[in-house]
């Protein structure tokens, strides 16, 4: 690929820039976790983790690690002033009850109707690990996906219809990739922004689903 595309830190920073102060946000495992590093501490965003931590702060330096404080990705984290601990049922009550303003998830595929597939790579995957993905996708007020635009093999991850097993139906509002930012609308994917040096044609060529440009 010779196009000038967004790096992962750039993608994370782009998502971070779109999160206003005061939102309660859950970041999925993988690239989404990087988003927190790009939200300045002065802009107070309250990060939630499935394992009952509300108000997660930056990763601690190695010598300051608290063995009792991890996030859902099992990484050591810190707690901000104003943070709180709850148990798993209360933590998922926050998720399922629609109290998170935003959840940022990674995905294998997002369909033009907002369906998301991010937990199992085939119908025959006999022991896929769902974790909290289905609760988050079905429960958060907004679901944004942060992922590479295509697979390593170059196949589009923005599709007409998901081929992988679904995580939730029609929940994705926005997708951030290395090539573009796209909204999910009743008419399908609407391009909000394109990486510099990527043309509309190039973007369309790398996207299975049809695109609308503003």
């Amino acid at each position, binding site marked *: 690929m010779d196009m000038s595309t967004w790096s992962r830190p750039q993608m994370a920073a782009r998502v971070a820039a779109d999160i206003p102060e005061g939102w309660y946000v859950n970041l999925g495992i993988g690239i989404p976790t990087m988003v927190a590093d790009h939200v300045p501490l002065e802009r107070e965003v309250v990060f939630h983790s499935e394992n009952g931590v509300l*108000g997660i702060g930056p990763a601690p330096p190695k010598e300051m690690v608290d063995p009792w404080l991890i996030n859902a990705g099992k990484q050591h984290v810190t707690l901000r002033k104003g943070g709180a601990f709850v148990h798993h049922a209360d933590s998922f009550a926050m998720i399922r009850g629609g109290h998170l303003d935003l959840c940022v998830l990674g995905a294998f595929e997002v369909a033009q109707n907002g369906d998301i597939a991010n937990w199992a790579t085939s119908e025959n995957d006999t022991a896929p690990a769902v974790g909290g993905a289905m609760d988050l996708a079905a429960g958060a007020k907004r679901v944004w996906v942060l992922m590479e635009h295509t697979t390593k093999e170059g196949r589009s991850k923005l599709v007409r219809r998901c081929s992988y097993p679904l995580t939730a139906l029609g929940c994705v509002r926005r997708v951030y990739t290395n090539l573009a930012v796209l909204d999910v609308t009743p008419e399908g994917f609407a391009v909000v922004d394109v990486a510099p040096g990527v043309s509309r044609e190039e973007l369309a060529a790398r996207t299975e689903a049809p695109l609308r440009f503003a």
Partner: protein
Amino acid sequence: MIDKFVRTIADALADIRDGSTVLLGGFGAVGQPSQLIDGLIEQGAKDLTVVANNAGNGRVGLARLMELGRVRRIVCSFPRSAGSVVFEELYRAGKIELEIVPQGTLAERMRAAGAGIGAFYTPTAFGTQLARGKETREIGGRQLVLEYALPGDVALVEAWQADRWGNLTYRKSGRNFNAVMATAAKLTVVQTQHVAELGTLDPEAIATPGIYVDRVVHVPYGDPPV
């Protein structure tokens, strides 16, 4: 900077609309959001559905709100008590609707609303008048009744301490319905006795995390009447 404190009760309640479902915390005299209820009386919203454990006492607070004809319907577990004179008058006159819900089912229906559960099967009230017309099902040898989530448009809550993120503690039996209702409404408004600096509340002892709270007013009114 997140700051959920608002200056006045009027500001906190400004946009409550006619026809709203209002959840009122408190049990007995303890944990009553009395000043917010007075504020709601001032505010003027009418045609309200009120969810509370009781149906008001004497002629103040919720009883006053009802007396002013602002409550169309009340959902509660214990409508009739020594002091529920206003309710009884209105009820006899056919001027208020009543839905009686067992106290635990009332709490659980709001907990369900807050937790994104649409409905649940409970053993409470099976075979009684209060289950009449409701779906039932046998699960694991127990007979259960289907009850639905009970969400509010607004919850009025009384807390002991609050910080600017809206984290709350309650005092002793003041926790009661307050901590449940705080999770169950679109707009949760809190009156707090004390203001805590952010970071001074023990993260292990926050009874209502700020995620459930929208607005907080500092109302240091003192102890409940004994």
